[in-house]
């Protein structure tokens, strides 16, 4: 199997072991959590949006397979400092490209979980001092 096809390329495992912004965000204004019920992958994303729609900061927590967690790390790294409009333009296809290795339809679901959660999170404001 050619190495560029490897599902678990080095950069994937790097993100898995050394994720970008895994954790919670005290100052979060928005948050969303979802799971992939078929395999139990869970991702929660908390983020801080400013009035201009800029994603000032964002963090994720979660549990699941390498693809689901590494892809969350990559996505957050990619969108860090970007705007809600940038996120809107960031398609599922873009997410798969960002991930890198080609995925079968079943594994695409793992990879797209965090992408779906983030797309929802920007529309899920946290109630003052409350939970989303």
């Amino acid at each position, binding site marked *: *199997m050619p190495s560029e096809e490897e599902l*678990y390329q080095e950069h994937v*495992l790097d993100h898995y072991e050394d994720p*970008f912004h895994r954790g919670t965000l005290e100052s979060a204004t928005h948050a969303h959590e979802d799971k992939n*019920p078929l395999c*139990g992958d869970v991702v929660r994303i908390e983020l801080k949006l400013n009035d201009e729609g800029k994603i000032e900061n964002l963090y994720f927590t979660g549990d699941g397979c*390498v693809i689901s967690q590494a892809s969350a790390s990559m996505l957050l*790294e990619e969108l860090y400092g970007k705007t809600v409009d940038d996120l809107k333009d960031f398609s599922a296809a873009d997410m798969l490209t960002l991930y890198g290795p080609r995925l079968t339809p079943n*594994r695409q679901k793992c990879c797209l979980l965090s992408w779906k959660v983030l797309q929802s999170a920007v529309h899920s404001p946290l109630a003052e001092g409350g939970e989303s």
Partner: protein
Amino acid sequence: MSAAKTVDQSALLPESLRDDFPILSRDILEGHPLVFLDNAASTQRPRQVIDAISNVYEHDYANVHRGIHTLSERSTELYELAREKVRAFVGAKHAREVIFTPGTTASINLVARSWGGANLQPGDEILTTVMEHHSNLVPWQQIAAETGAVLRHVPITEDGRLDMAAFDQLLSERTKLVAVCSISNTLGTINPIDEITSKAHAAGALVLVDAAQSVPHMPVDVLKSDVDFLAFSGHKMLGPSGVGILYGKESLLDAMPPFLGGGSMINEVRLDSFTPAELPAKFEAGTPPIAPAIGMSAAIDYLNHIGLEAIHRHEQVLTQLAYDALSQIEGLRILGPAPKHRAGLVSFAFERIHAHEFAQVLNDQFGVAVRAGHHCTQPLHALLGISASTRASFYFYNQPENVDCLLEGISAVQSMFAPQGRRRRRKHNS
């Protein structure tokens, strides 16, 4: 040392059986012949079954029943012969107690809706277990919601067996039906069906056995076990997809209202009313799965030729082998009981590595097909505190070498995903 070398060869079935299965000799990965350990989800088919299906379409096919012409006579005969084969295979008294359905799930729904709809009253209890497949849970949840009946669940012991002390306590005169699997598709646990039926009957309850995982793997005798309803699927026993069985005692099936309405299940139809047909047609609305049923009868011939006792013995060897080796692996948790209480499958969870990684790497690098997920037993997984597990499930065409492949792959996954202090390339200074 290869674990495969240590086994009692005399308990094994000949490897040459694999030659009957065209798919088993295909390479999934270059140089890696298929190691198929996903048999609990669905088995493969021998040439004999594939040919039986082609044959019926090439020589004997027409719609069954009522047809006077030769092809319809022939397909009707083959279809009814298949029913008789199934009858003998499960030890039923009458062929009319054997209903062809689309599968186990459909069989259980039939009983839940027809028997349950007609017999359950508010406060009546249906006793099922925490290890059931969704197909033996959801239909009971649905009919309970409709009738006001209550669902109760027998728990499991520490080691993953049915808690029979709890069963005794939960069983009461309110219990109308016990719905239980003969073998758990996740734990592998073999449940004491004979004990369950005798206790349930003493309490005045009926017993439905979800036999999807037992009928393909060990002898079953519905009369001896005094089972009221038995459900299983063709595709898990070498048969074609699209066919399953509901066995029911004649007196019970006779007293039940029809379920689906349509052609065949009727005696007389007027614009506003109908009278149902006799068994088994009463529960076979519409054109039945003709070729799948006929293919299933070829599967039964094949299984009978090997012998279910021999199949079970063979699988016990593989299970013991896998169990013993997996028990040695640190951080790996085997779900379910010791080999002597289990059938031919082993599910496990690993502390830090998700089941997906096992399934993916075993497939991509070792040509080993296992299943990762909840295996349609979410409540059981929740109870065990895990969201997914990896399952290797055997059939008689697996050999000890296949277990070796599995073990080799598991080692590889372990080292591949062991923490190595990797660092991602920094994009941001944050």
